[in-house]
C-alpha cells in the first residue's frame, strides 16, 4: 500500500505519516487483525509502506512499518518485489510488474469490457449486473474472466433462484439468451490469469453445483405443500410487536384489497384471494434462504397450486414498486393488493407513532407512500386518497391510534417530491397541492394544465390578481365582512359590471371543460379575463364605505376566485 500526497515544503516529512495513519483509521473496517511481531492492526496484514515524494522516500512509520520505496504485487502473478525509482512509477509498475491494477475505475472498466467480450463470444446477455460489478471489482487485483457451465437440468428451477444464488453467493455473472432466459452458463471473475483455466473453472463449477442442488431441493420441497396450507402458520410470525402477527396482517390486507378492487370495478374475490396468499411464501424454504425472492416464489407456487393467473401475478406484484423506477403492479387485482399492502403498513405504523423523521425510516414508509402515489397516478386509478387511508385505518379496528391527517400530509409530501423530481416548479406543485386534491390520479393532468397556463402571456397578471384577491378577501374576512353571491344590482361601475359579465360567460364553458377533465382548456379559458380584471383593479376601489357596494365587490372577487381556482390555487403562481 502506498499513498502519494502533495503538501508543500519541509512540513511533509513531519506530517505525512500521521496523515496516512489518520486516513487509515477513518476507514470503516468492521474487524481488525494483528500480524507479525508488532501490535499494528488493520483489516489484513500490511507488509510494506511506500511513502515517496518524487524520487525521495518520505521518512515515517505507519502501522509499525518504516516507509520505503519497495512494495509487493499480486501474490501469485507478480514478478517479485517492486522497487520504485519515483512515485510517478507507482501505478504503472504496480500494474506491469505487480499485476495489480491500483485504480478502481480502471479495474472496473477492464472487468466490464472483458465480461462483455466473453458474453458476446457466447452470444449471450449479461442482464443487469452493475451492483455485482462494483462488488467484484473490490475483490480482485488483476481480473481474468472465465466461462463456467452448470448442468441444464437445473434450469427446471425458477431462474430467479439460480440467478440469485450465482450472483449473491458465488459472485458469478449469469448469462442469458436474447429473450432474457437463463443459460446454463456463467462468467467467473478470477484474480488469476492462467494459461490453462481448467482448474479454476472446474473448481468453481464444483462449488456452484451444491448451491444449485440446494435451490432445486427447496423448490421441490416447497411445492409439496400448498400456499394456502401455509397461511395459518403466519400466526406464529410476528410482524411488528404492536401490530400483531403476519396472519392478522394478511387478514387486513385481504379485506382492504377486496374493498379497493370493488371500487375499481374488478373481481374482489380474486383480490381477496391474492391478499390471503400474499405472505404465505415467507414460510417457504426458498424464501427462508433467499428473502429477496419473496413474492417471486409466491407466484410460482400459486401457479403450481392451480390458483388463477391474476392471483399469482398479484402475489408477486404486491411488493412493487420495490425501488425507484421499479415496475408497477399490472392490472386492477395486482394494484389493489399492492395498495392494500402499503396502506396497511402505513396506517399501522403511523397509528403506533412510527412516523419517519429525518433520515430515520426503518420501515421504508417513504417508499411505501411513494409506491401508493405512483400506482394511483401512473395506473390512473380513480380512487380517493382519503377513502383509501380511512379504510386502511379501519382495518385496525381501533387497535392503533388515529393518524389519518398525519398520513395524508405525509402522502402529499411524497407527491410533492415526486413532481419536484419530474422538474415541475415548486410554485406549480404548490398551486395544485394546496387544493388537497383527493384524486391523486388526476394530479398529473392538473399540474400539466397549470404548467401550460403558466406559460401563457396572461398568466402573470392573472396570478398576481389572484394573489391580490386572496389578500383582500382575507383582510375583509378578518374584519368580519360577509359576502355572499354577487347580485348584479349590487354593482355600479362599468368595470365591475364588465368583469361580472366576463366571469359569468367564461365560467359556464370553463366548468364544462373542468367536468370533462380538460384542465388545460379550463385554465386557458380564463385568459380572456385578464383585461377585465386589470381594468377592475385600475378603476374600482373595493373597500369603499358604502356597505352595499363593498359587499358586492367582495362577492364579485370571491366569485372570480371560485371560478378560476377549481384546478389549482393560481395565487401560488404569483412571484
Amino acid at each position, binding site marked *: 500500500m502506498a499513498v502519494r500526497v502533495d503538501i508543500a515544503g519541509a512540513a511533509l516529512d513531519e506530517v505525512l505519516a500521521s496523515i496516512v495513519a489518520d486516513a487509515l483509521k477513518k476507514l470503516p473496517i468492521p*474487524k*481488525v*487483525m*494483528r*500480524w507479525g511481531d508488532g501490535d499494528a*492492526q488493520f483489516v*489484513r*496484514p500490511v507488509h510494506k509502506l511506500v511513502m515517496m515524494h518524487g524520487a525521495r522516500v518520505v521518512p515515517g512509520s505507519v502501522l509499525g512499518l518504516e516507509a520505503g520505496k519497495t512494495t509487493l504485487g499480486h*501474490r*501469485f502473478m507478480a514478478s517479485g518485489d517492486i522497487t520504485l525509482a519515483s512515485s510517478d512509477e507507482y501505478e504503472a509498475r504496480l500494474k506491469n510488474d505487480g499485476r495489480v491494477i491500483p485504480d478502481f475505475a480502471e479495474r472496473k472498466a477492464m472487468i466490464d469490457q472483458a465480461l462483455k467480450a466473453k458474453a458476446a463470444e457466447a452470444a449471450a446477455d449479461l442482464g443487469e449486473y452493475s451492483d455485482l460489478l462494483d462488488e467484484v471489482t473490490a475483490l480482485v487485483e488483476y481480473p481474468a474472466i472465465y466461462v463456467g457451465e452448470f448442468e441444464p437440468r437445473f434450469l427446471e428451477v425458477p431462474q430467479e433462484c439460480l440467478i440469485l444464488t450465482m450472483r449473491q*453467493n*458465488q*459472485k458469478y455473472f449469469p448469462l442469458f439468451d436474447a429473450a432474457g432466459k437463463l443459460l446454463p452458463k456463467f462468467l*467467473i471473475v*478470477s*484474480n*488469476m490469469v492462467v494459461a490453462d483455466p481448467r*482448474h*479454476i473453472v472446474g*473448481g*468453481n463449477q*464444483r*462449488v456452484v453445483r*451444491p*448451491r444449485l442442488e440446494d435451490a432445486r431441493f427447496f423448490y421441490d420441497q416447497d411445492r409439496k405443500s400448498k400456499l394456502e396450507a401455509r397461511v395459518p402458520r403466519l400466526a*406464529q*410470525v*410476528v*410482524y*411488528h*410487536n404492536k*401490530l400483531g402477527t*403476519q396472519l392478522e*396482517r394478511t387478514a387486513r390486507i385481504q379485506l382492504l384489497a377486496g374493498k379497493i378492487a370493488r371500487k375499481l370495478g374488478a373481481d374482489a374475490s380474486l383480490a381477496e384471494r391474492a391478499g390471503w396468499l400474499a*405472505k404465505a411464501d*415467507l414460510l417457504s*424454504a426458498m424464501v*427462508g*434462504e433467499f*428473502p*429477496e425472492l*419473496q413474492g417471486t416464489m409466491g407466484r410460482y407456487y400459486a401457479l403450481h397450486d392451480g390458483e388463477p393467473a391474476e392471483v399469482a401475478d398479484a402475489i408477486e406484484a404486491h*411488493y412493487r414498486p*420495490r*425501488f425507484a423506477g421499479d415496475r408497477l403492479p399490472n392490472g386492477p387485482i395486482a394494484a389493489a393488493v399492492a395498495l392494500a399492502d402499503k396502506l396497511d*403498513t402505513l396506517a399501522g405504523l403511523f397509528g403506533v407513532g412510527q412516523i419517519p423523521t429525518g433520515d430515520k425510516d*426503518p*420501515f*421504508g414508509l417513504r*417508499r411505501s407512500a411513494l409506491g401508493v402515489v405512483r400506482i394511483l397516478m401512473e395506473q390512473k386509478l380513480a380512487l380517493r386518497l382519503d377513502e383509501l387511508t380511512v379504510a386502511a385505518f379501519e382495518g385496525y379496528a381501533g387497535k392503533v391510534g388515529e393518524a389519518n391527517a398525519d398520513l395524508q400530509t405525509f402522502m402529499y409530501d411524497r407527491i410533492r417530491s415526486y413532481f419536484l423530481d419530474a422538474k415541475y416548479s415548486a410554485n406549480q406543485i404548490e398551486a395544485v397541492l394546496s387544493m388537497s386534491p383527493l384524486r391523486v390520479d388526476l394530479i398529473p393532468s392538473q399540474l400539466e394544465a397549470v404548467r401550460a397556463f403558466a406559460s401563457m402571456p396572461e398568466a402573470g397578471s392573472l396570478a398576481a390578481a389572484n394573489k391580490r384577491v386572496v389578500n383582500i378577501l382575507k383582510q375583509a374576512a378578518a374584519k368580519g365582512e360577509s359576502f355572499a353571491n354577487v347580485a348584479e344590482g349590487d354593482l355600479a361601475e362599468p368595470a365591475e359590471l364588465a368583469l361580472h359579465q366576463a366571469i359569468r360567460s367564461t365560467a359556464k364553458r370553463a366548468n364544462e371543460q373542468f367536468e370533462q377533465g380538460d384542465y388545460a382548456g379550463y385554465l386557458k379559458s380564463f385568459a380572456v379575463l385578464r383585461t377585465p380584471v386589470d381594468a377592475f383593479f385600475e378603476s374600482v376601489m373595493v373597500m369603499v364605505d358604502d356597505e352595499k357596494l363593498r359587499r358586492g365587490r367582495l362577492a364579485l372577487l370571491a366569485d372570480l376566485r371560485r371560478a378560476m381556482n377549481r384546478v389549482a390555487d393560481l395565487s401560488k403562481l404569483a412571484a
Partner: protein
Amino acid sequence: MKLLMLDRDGVINQDSDQYIKSPEEWKPIKGSIEAIARLTQSGWRIVVATNQSGIARGLFDMSMLNAIHDAMHKAVVQAGGRIEAVFFCPHTADSNCECRKPLPGMLQEIERRMNLSIAGMPFVGDSLRDLQAATAAGARPVLVLTGKGAKTREAGGLPEGTEIFADLAAFAVAQLSDQRAEHRGESRIDTRAEPRTA
C-alpha cells in the same frame, strides 16, 4: 460472524509420516478445497492452525513452508475460497513452547490476532491433540476421519462433545444446512416482509 479453524495435514491435505516438505508433496484431500470455498462464500472466515515441527527438525525452512502454503492458497483461491491466515508452531514437542497443540496457545493467538473470541467456534482436526487444544481454548472440537482421524477415533478418549465427520466436505455440508435451519428457526421480525432498502 463465524470463524473456522482448521488443522492442515490430514484435514486439508493428505498427511505423510515423512512430513510435507515441498509444494509437490502437498496434495489436497478430495473435496476439501471446495469445502473451504463454499464456507468462505457463506460468510465464514477461515484460518489454519498447524504444528510444523519439520522446521525445528531442519527438514524444511521457512521459505519452503511459505511455498507450500502458497500452493495451498492458490488451490483455495482457484476454487473461489480464501484462507485468511495460517498459524503454525515450528517447535518440537520437547521445546516447551506454548503454541504446540495440544496446548491452546496457537488458538489463543488466533483470538488475539483476529481480535475476536473463538468460544464455540469449530476447530477441525484429525488428531487427539487438535481436539484437546480446541477444548482447552473453549472452541468446538471437531474430528474428521481423514488423515489420522480414523485411528484417532479408534483410540478413543476423545474430549466430551467432540463432533465427528467423514471429512471436511461433510463438515461443510452440515454447517451450511445447520445455518439454513437456524435461519428458518428465527422468528421473522417486523421488517422481514418489507421490501429491503436498496
